[in-house]
């Protein structure tokens, strides 16, 4: 039992709707329909919400807003498109600035048509979303359990966008340590990553079809292998996934006489893990005025 089904908190966003559907959304909160009977609260804060209600067709101005709200919602979450415009673009579909329904920006779970949508249909849509929400929670719980059975594979070029997203999420904690968002890992572009991909071996850790960790490495041609960008999704940390990936990437270079990697001087957890894996510090180099790269190496016997 998760209580999710009994306490769905919604956030409502008007993506260029004519206000017809929005008024109906608010009407469902009034004494006549009183959705609080089902524990539904209109939060107005994506970080507290479980269900994202979007009305109106998405236009060029607010695509980024819709995306942002969706990204800020904690898992598990579902999206309900309310009204004809949100489900398909409606009569604004052909407009030059309209990108179509909500599903042109974020994945939509429940489509509720209507112009304007009726409060009964809104409540029905939210109740339908509850089932999906519960299934999603169970899936997440299962993948946390399944972290132990993470499979490690070579990544393919098709994985690169997902790997880039993973890297940017994973390096947030590093940026936080140094209070500096100029870390190169946070600014890599897909083109640069593709260039990396062409000369390096990329490994991905997969749990239930989702990439949760990755690392890459290359042989420098002088007998030593460089390992870099070890990333694990924050939700999956502390389960020794990083160590397993390190072992796997080292095994990719059986010829290498030594392995080399670097991290920041205040990244205590990283340094601790690498030290435990047999790496020792051999030089430091300043990156900017408050970050120093600590280079570590491990000699292969």
């Amino acid at each position, binding site marked *: *039992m*998760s*209580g*999710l089904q*009994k*306490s769905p*908190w919604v956030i409502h966003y008007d993506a260029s709707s004519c206000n017809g559907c929005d008024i109906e959304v608010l009407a469902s909160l*009034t*004494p006549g329909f*009183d959705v*609080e*009977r*089902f*524990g539904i*609260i*209109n*939060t*107005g*804060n994506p*970080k*507290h919400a*479980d269900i994202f209600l979007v009305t109106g067709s998405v236009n060029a101005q607010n695509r980024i807003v819709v995306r942002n709200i969706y990204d*800020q919602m*904690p*898992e*598990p979450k579902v999206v309900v498109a309310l009204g004809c415009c949100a489900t398909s673009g409606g009569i604004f579909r052909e407009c030059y600035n309209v990108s179509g329904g909500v599903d042109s920006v974020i994945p939509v779970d429940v489509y509720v048509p209507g112009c304007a949508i009726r409060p009964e249909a809104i409540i029905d849509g939210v109740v339908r979303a509850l089932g999906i929400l519960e299934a999603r*929670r169970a899936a*997440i*719980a299962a993948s946390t359990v399944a972290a132990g059975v993470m499979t490690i594979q070579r990544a393919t070029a098709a994985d690169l966008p997902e790997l880039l997203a993973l890297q940017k999420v994973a390096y947030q*904690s590093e940026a*936080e340590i140094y209070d500096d968002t100029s870390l190169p890992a946070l600014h890599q572009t897909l083109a640069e990553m593709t260039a990396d991909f062409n000369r390096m071996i990329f490994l991905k850790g997969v749990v239930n079809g989702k990439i949760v960790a990755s690392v890459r490495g290359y042989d420098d041609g002088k007998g030593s292998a460089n390992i870099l960008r070890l990333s694990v999704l924050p*939700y999956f940390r502390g389960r020794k996934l990083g160590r397993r990936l390190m072992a796997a990437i080292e095994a990719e270079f059986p010829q290498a006489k030594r392995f080399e990697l670097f991290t920041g001087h205040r990244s205590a957890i990283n340094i601790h893990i690498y030290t435990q894996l047999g790496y020792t510090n051999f030089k430091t180099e300043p990156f900017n005025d408050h970050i120093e790269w600590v280079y570590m190496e491990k000699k292969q016997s």
Partner: protein
Amino acid sequence: MSPWWRLLIYLVAAPLVGGLLAGIDRRISAHMQARQGPPLLQPFYDVIKLWSKERLVVRRTQNYFILFFFLLTVFTGALFFCGSDLLLVFFALTLSGIFFVLGAYKASSPYSFVGASRELVQMMAYEPVVLLTAVGLYMVTHTFQVDAIVSSAHTPILLLPGLFVALMYAMEMKFRKSPFDLSMSHHAHQELVRGITTEFSGPTLAIIEVAHWYENVMLLGWLFPFFSTHWVFGLAATALMFFLLLVVDNVCARVRWDFALRSTWQMTLVLGCGNILVLWLVEVLGIVKL
């Protein structure tokens, strides 16, 4: 009952009573608005739900502050229900509030900042009168020990009516009710986003909610000594006061922070200090023997 038993009962029962009070609060409020309202156990469903959600953070340290906020809130109530010193309880209460504010500041988001600064303004507003309560109760019962205050022969409300009114005025703030739900509100979630709790999600938000339940039980406990002639009378009067807070919550719109601060201090000065002054005078003149 020994203080240790009371501590144990408090630790176990306070979240249950607090959650139930929150449920009653929501149902009564809904009925006042001609709605049916959520099930009585809705606050518990909410907390269970929040516990299974992802914990999103801006900075991970923000959650440690909330953990300390929770621990200190529980500690405050524990001190109170063990019958400790009222002043000590007051200072522990302040400290727990400060940790909440620090957590919100740590999250560095504009909404969180607004909520945190409003919370600080609220603390400035309600703390004088809460401290004055301890002074008033001391004048009547000659002790700061909660145990001794509750078991004294006096009914403090008869001698401290002004102070009590001022305290109730400030309590709207502590219970996060209109007209003073400036930093974080249970209703009208849209206007402040969610004030001080904006950046907390999942289990951390659940901890804040449970801490709030503990706090509410402690605050109702703070009202109890005023009616402590008989425990049935005391409980009934405290329940009535809780209902009164709900009524005020539902009939008032939110006011601006400067009005909230000014009016609370005016109430404290005129009714609170006035009450204590009069009490001192009548005692000096020998009209009342304390």
